[in-house]
């Protein structure tokens, strides 16, 4: 049995009457790539932000390596996260962005050059991020996440802006991390994006858990993967949407 690096227990986030995330419980095991799936607005980003201590839960908790994120002694060395491609100051140079992150984590400057090389941004590192393409920003975000060589990697929609070559590169990177016993959770609203990468999937719809298990189980239970995904994420109280699935 693989060890559990992320454990989510009864996690809820309500914004007034809106139940963005409701009573979510699941585990993310080490040594595998876990796909975190759901349509837009299903509560994926809110859940990931709660895991990372950015959003306070209404109820429940999310523990990473047995602790709340804020209690991790060296958060950047335990967890690497890529949350949004826009989280950069446009006037700052790519290298400086990484130097700042490395400095807080007490990591040597040499590590900055290593991750720049890993994500293929060494040549662009001296340029201001404002001139980067979306794909380059995703790579810079990944470089930031990889700085501390963390046990856990959390990626929110990392495929946005990556070209096919970038996608293939990302797939290899995630597989390699899992193969060395690391934990990877990667969110997406498109099943096909992670069907080739993920070992397990956690599916949420309207803030609730609808599936949690090996990707293969999703297959056998419902015919094609895409059908299964649609069935698990469709609001059956909505006649139009339900008809589309049938």
């Amino acid at each position, binding site marked *: 049995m693989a060890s559990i690096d992320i454990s989510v227990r009864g996690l809820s986030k309500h914004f007034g009457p809106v139940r963005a995330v409701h009573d979510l419980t699941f585990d993310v095991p080490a040594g595998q790539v876990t796909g975190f799936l759901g349509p837009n607005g299903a509560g994926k980003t809110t859940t990931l*932000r709660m895991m*990372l*201590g*950015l*959003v*306070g839960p209404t109820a429940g908790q999310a523990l990473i390596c047995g602790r709340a*994120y*804020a209690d*991790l002694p060296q*958060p*950047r060395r335990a*967890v690497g*996260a890529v*949350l*949004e491609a*826009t*989280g*950069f*100051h*446009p*006037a*700052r*140079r790519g290298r*400086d962005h990484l*130097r*700042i*992150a490395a*400095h*807080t*984590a*007490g990591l040597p400057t040499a590590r900055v050059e290593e991750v720049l090389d890993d994500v293929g941004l060494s040549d662009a590192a001296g340029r201001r991020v404002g001139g980067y393409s979306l794909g380059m920003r995703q790579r810079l975000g990944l470089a*930031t996440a990889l700085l501390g060589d963390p046990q856990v990697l959390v990626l929110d929609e990392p495929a946005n802006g990556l070209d096919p070559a970038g996608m293939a590169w990302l797939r290899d990177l995630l597989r390699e991390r899992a193969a060395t016993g690391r934990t990877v959770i990667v969110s997406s609203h498109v099943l096909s994006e992670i069907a080739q990468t993920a070992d397990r999937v956690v599916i949420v719809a309207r803030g609730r858990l609808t599936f949690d298990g090996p990707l293969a189980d999703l297959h056998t239970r419902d015919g094609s993967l895409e059908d299964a995904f649609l069935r698990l994420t469709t609001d059956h109280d909505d006649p139009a949407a339900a008809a589309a699935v049938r």
Partner: protein
Amino acid sequence: MLTLIGNEWLKLRTTRGPWILLAVQLALITLGAAGPLSNMPLDQAATATGAVAHVGLTSLVALMLGILVVAGEYRHKTITDTYLGTPRRSRVVVAKLAVATTAGAGFAVLGAGLSLIVTWGWLTAAGHTMPWSDAELWRTVAGDVAWNAAFAAIGVGIGALVRNLAVAVAGSLAWLALVEGIVGQVAGRDVTRYLPFSAGTALGRLPASIADGLPQWGAATLLAGYAVLFASAAVAFTARRDVA
């Protein structure tokens, strides 16, 4: 904590905003000094003091710097990365306060140096002597630097509370340009002299404030109080709010 302060300094100097603000501040100080020097009698010490007092008025720039240090991070969403690296948010805010206040004071010291050089050069060129031993001149310089430091700290507080860069900048400028004046017309000088900008003018020994403003030490204490109030509110609010 020292690592965090070093980190905030690194963030500050790897963007262009702070350096543009410094350039604006130095230009305003030079222009400001030229006014009294070309209109007032050069043989009086008050002229030199009036020229240098513009360093205090550029505390508006220090206020913008303080706002930028926090709200700029929300504007560009770098705040997410900041809190991922340092989940104890109150420590981030304290580090930002330290860096902004020091930068505000440091920029003001540079501005004061420039202002003194310009004034000295002008007076010397016109055949007059610089009143180096005038106590009021140094009181003004010290007050101006303190005013800048206090406004930078208040700026951090406003930035952390408002979080929206444009709203924070527009709101604080409107307060300084409009609200204190309107309050003054309604409630009178007895009330306005306790408001932040008026307290600043008294601390910075602006000629207009010397007659009916607070005494300099009183203004310093009051402004420090405002800075502590805004900073505490910033620390308290930042810890609780979600970063979406």
